[in-house]
Structures are given as C-alpha cells and as structure tokens.
C-alpha cells in the first residue's frame, strides 16, 4: 500500500498538469535531490565523481537529446556523437577565441552550433524515412568526424590534432581544465543537466511534444490533422542537436579535458543510443536509468574480479565486459522492449494495485 494513488484527487486542470501529480513521486524526487546536492558531494571520492557521477549525468543528457529526436519525434539517428563533437569543438573555439567568455555561457551557447548543423542534416528527413534516414545521420557522423580531423582551424592547428581544454575560471574558481576540481565540475554538470532536463520535460509534455509524438506515431495522419511535418521534424532536430551539443561540450570541458576527433566516432553514438533505448524511447527519466546502467555496469564489472579476488587479465575482463553489455542489452530488450522507464512504470502500476493481483 506504499504506492497508493487513491485519494489524491485533482481539482483543476492546472494541478493535473503539475509535474508530479502523485505525491510519492515528488517525495522520490526530493530524496534524489538530497543525494545529488548534499550526500554525493560530501561523500563521493574523486574516482566516483570521475567514473560514475559526472559521466552518468553527461551521458544522460546526450541520451535525452537523442531521445527527443528518436524517442519523441521518431527520427532514428546514428550520428549523435558527431553532434556532440560539434558542440565540443564550438565550445573550444569560443573559449580560445574569446577567453573572457563565461565558460557556462560558452557551453550553453555551443549547443546553438550543433543545432544549426543538426537542422542542416535533418532536412533530408522530410523525404527520407526510417532506416533510410539513418543514412543522413551516418553521413553527418562520418563527414563531421572527418572534418574535425582535416580542418586544422578547429583545433587551433595543434600538432596532435586534439583539442585540449584550457584552465578556465569562473568567480575565481577553476571550473574547467586540469586545475578544476571534480566537485566543482560535478556541480556545473548537475546544474546544466537539471536545467536542460527541466526544459525537455516542459517541451515534451506540451504542444511541441505532442507534435513530435504525433509525427513519430504516424506522420501521414499527423500531417492530415494539421501538423507541419517540416517544422515538427526540424524543431526536433534543432532541440535534439542543441542538447546533444551541450552534452558534447560538457563531455569534453567538464569531464574528459581533451578530445581527439576519433572520440566522436560511431561507438559513442551507439553508446548513447543504447542508453536511450535501454532507458526507454520516449521517456525523459529513462535516459537517466539507462545511463546508470550503461555507464555504471562496466565500472562494476571491472571492479568485480578484483573484489572477488579472481585473477583474470584486464583484457579478458574487457572482453567479458563487452560480452556482458551485449547480453544485457538483449536481456533488457526481451524483458521490456520499452525500456527501463517502462519497467519502472509497470512496477508502479503493480505497486498501485498491490496487494491485489489485478
């Protein structure tokens, strides 16, 4: 009876549209916030920040961006990483060309560039559908990575061809670059990710969100009931690429500290896609669950043999790791094709009717 919803009545449309119509959910959110804002920062080790907390949030954001496009608007994209790259390179160029620029503003602004590029590569979606559309995103993927390599201006003609995050200060504290501390970066990431998540929640529950979902579920019908498909698809590309671009900038500036073009190649796209799908297409929360799984799992798998005192070589661990991830993807797809978010919903539904079976 923990999850009783009976007795919680809504008396106005306004309150029905509130973010957390059910009290328990609001409570859960409170607990999460408590952890995120107080408990983690106080207790987490450097290692936890760097391999768990920060990457999970950044990957969640990237997956959220992808989810807008693929999960909400139904346009399959295999080029997420390239758009992350656009964000990262844009941010790099901005802070190196204009060192006075506030880093957080730069990060938020870098998404604008990826949104532009995203829209350009989204134009074919007006004609091309389904897996065929994947080709447009793959073209973006491979072309952009190539461009990151060949266009030396992008990486300031560095000998290595990589971009290196300079030490950046805000209010006298280092927030990016090798000098920045993990806690600070954690808070920056937390702030931006929460902000954009909020934006996504708003967009997806509102009019634009419905437009996207209609386009996804049946584009012909959508057009016949008055949806301008071009606008719907292109806004999805724009919003999605914006978020993905910001995630890319965070990825490099708040986490990795440096990046070479290769980083933005297709394996990263796939990883983000895994997160979005395992988490649940068409869900906001799912991305976080997916990221916890996909980012957290390898960490656990890596630590496990040592913790259990089983002597296996690091290469074998890596192989086992890949195998496990592969199997888990299949496993989760079989258990619940609609992802962890759906699984959570089902559990909730069961809890609501608990202890009665039906």
């Amino acid at each position: 009876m923990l999850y009783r919803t009976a007795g919680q009545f809504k008396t106005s449309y306004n309150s029905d549209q509130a973010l957390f119509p059910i009290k328990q959910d609001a409570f859960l959110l409170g607990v999460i916030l408590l952890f995120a804002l107080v408990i983690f920062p106080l207790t987490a080790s450097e290692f936890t920040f760097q391999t768990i907390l920060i990457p999970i949030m950044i990957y969640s954001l990237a997956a959220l961006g992808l989810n807008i496009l693929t999960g909400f608007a139904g346009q399959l994209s295999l080029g997420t990483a390239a758009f992350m790259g656009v964000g990262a390179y844009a941010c790099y160029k901005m802070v190196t060309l204009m060192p006075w620029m506030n880093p957080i503003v730069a990060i938020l602004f870098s998404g604008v560039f990826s949104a532009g590029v995203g829209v350009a590569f989204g134009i074919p979606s007006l004609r091309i559908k389904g897996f065929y559309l994947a080709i447009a995103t793959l073209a973006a993927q491979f072309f952009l990575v190539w461009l990151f390599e060949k266009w030396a201006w992008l990486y300031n003609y560095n000998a290595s061809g990589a971009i290196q995050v300079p030490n950046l200060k805000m209010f006298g504290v280092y927030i990016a670059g090798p000098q920045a501390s993990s806690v600070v970066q954690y808070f920056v990431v937390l702030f931006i990710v929460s902000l954009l998540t909020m934006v996504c929640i708003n967009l997806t529950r509102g009019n634009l969100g419905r437009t996207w979902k209609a386009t996804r579920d049946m584009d012909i019908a959508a057009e016949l009931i008055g949806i301008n498909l071009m606008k719907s698809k292109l806004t999805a590309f724009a919003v999605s690429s914006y978020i993905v671009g910001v995630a890319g900038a965070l990825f490099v500036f708040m986490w990795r500290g440096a990046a070479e073009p290769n980083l933005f190649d297709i394996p990263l796209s796939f990883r983000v896609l895994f997160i979005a799908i395992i988490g649940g297409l068409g869900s906001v929360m799912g991305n976080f669950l997916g990221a916890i799984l996909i980012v957290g799992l390898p960490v656990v798998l890596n630590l496990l043999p040592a913790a259990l005192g089983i002597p296996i070589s690091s290469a074998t661990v890596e192989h086992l790791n890949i195998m496990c991830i592969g199997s888990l993807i299949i496993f989760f797809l079989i258990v619940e094709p609609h992802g962890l978010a759906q699984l959570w919903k089902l559990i909730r539904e069961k809890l609501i009717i608990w202890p009665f079976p039906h």
Partner: protein
Amino acid sequence: MLNDIFIAPFADMIAAPDFLLQVLWEGLVSGILYALIALGFVLIFRSSRIFNFAQGIMVVFAALTLVGLHAMGIPAWISVALTLGVMFILAVSIERIVLRPLVGQPDIILFMASIGITLFLIGGGEIIFGGENKVMITEELGIPTGDTVLEPWGGLLILQHLDITVVLVASALVAALLAFLNYTQMGRAIRALGDDHQAALSVGISLQTVWVLVWFIAGIIALVTGIAWGARAGVSFALEVIAYKALPVLMLGGLESITGAIIGGLLIGILEKLFEIYWGQPLLGGNTETWFAFVLALFVLLFRPQGLFGEKIIERV
C-alpha cells in the same frame, strides 16, 4: 579552383588511362566485397525487418573460426565444413535466444538487439581467438594468389588472381540467391515475413525455420566474405569496420533488394575510389572514403527515398 574540380581530374584520367583502369578495378573489387556484406544484410532484412548490424562481425567471426580451426591442425576443407557447422549453430542460437522472444517488436528494438549480438560476438570472439592479426589460409584453400600484369597503352595494370576469384565467386553467389528468393516457396515466405510477422504466423509460416535458414545463409555469405577480405587484408577484428561500408551500399541499393546490394556495392566501390583519387586526395586532404559513400547514398535517397531498387514505401490512410 574550377579547373581543379572540373578539368584537371579528367585530364589526369586521360593522361594515364592505365592508372584509371587500375583505379576502376580496385573500386570494382572493393565494391564486390561491400556488396557481399550487404547481401547478408538484405536477406535478413527481408525476412525479418531486422537491420542486422551483426553481419559485419559475423564475417570476422566466420573467418576467425576458419583460421582458428585450421591452426588446430584440421585440414583446410574440413575446417570450412566445421565453420559452416558453427555458423549454423550460431544461427540457431540467435533465433532461439534473441529473435524468438522479440517477435513483433518495433524495428529499432530489433536493430538494437543486433547490436547486442555484435557486442557479444566481439567479446566472445576475442576471448576465444585472441586479438592478434591472423593470416587467412588462402593457399591451403586452393585460392590462386599470383597476379597478372598487363600493359595497356604501355602502362601498368596489376590484377590479383585473388581479386578475380572473388569477383567470380561473388557473382555466382548472387545468382543463386536471386533464384532462391524469386522462384521458391521459401523465397516467397521470406518476403511475406518481412511485411507482417503476425500475418505470416497466422498463415503458418514458421518463423523459426525461416529465420534459422536465413541467418544460416547469411552465415555462409559471411564466411565467403571473410575468406575474401581475410585473404586481402588479414583476419582481425579491425575487419569489423568494413561492415559500416555495407550500410550506404544497402541504402543506396534499397534495403530489400539483392540486385540493389550488388549495384549499390559496385557503384559505391568505384565512385568512392574515383572521388578519393581524383578529387579527395588532391583537393580535400584525402580520406574521403570514410564519408563519400554515405553522402552519395544520401544524395540518391533524396530523389528515391527507397533507394535505387528498394520497395516503394506504401503510404495509405
């Protein structure tokens, strides 16, 4: 600038026709190899709407198994037979473990599952076979390895016998497949299955049988491809990246079309090579082969959204 784009390349082609021929030949051979991978994709896509990302790794897996078995001292041809056995077991397991529980799920879920299979095979393959580069048992299989040097227009044209063999074998394979799909009851069942799983089930088409068969055929194609690529470039997991090349080939040709896979493969193989040699390297700093195929496919799709030979997308309300 205009000269560099529109005139100089063609002047180069005319100036060294033997070289142009060589470029075309190289393009043709890689095109055939792309097409072979694409064939596996098409077959599976047709029968299950699964965009089977694992085709590339199946190539590696088949090649590694073959080489691995031979390294254990088993004669070459028996190794081939055993490898086919392994591919069959793989097909059966994939059907049992992955496909059966996922019947009727949306395309993207199945696509994801195929990536899951890919990861599993990469991990498993490396544990079993190790990561080192291996040499394909070309000679043991009786594949000719020499070359023929021609001198057209007093120039130089090198034709590897291996490449010629690949071209011939691939053509035979394609002909056989086309006949199978178009003239057999099973072929029709495969196409029906691609349209509507549920309806196919309802008329008694056994998904299990069709899928095992189709994945097994894809496995055979993978082995052939693996031998061909392996003989050219050695056998290692790096081969897996060539799988990406099959994607634009498929899209360009049309996801359901065998003919499309072949034509798409050849077109892409040849055009990307021409572009790289005559435009990419002199003007763009090279390496354009990483994206050229995709951009080309994209361009074609803008005019034919279902690819050159794909099935028209039926839009009704």
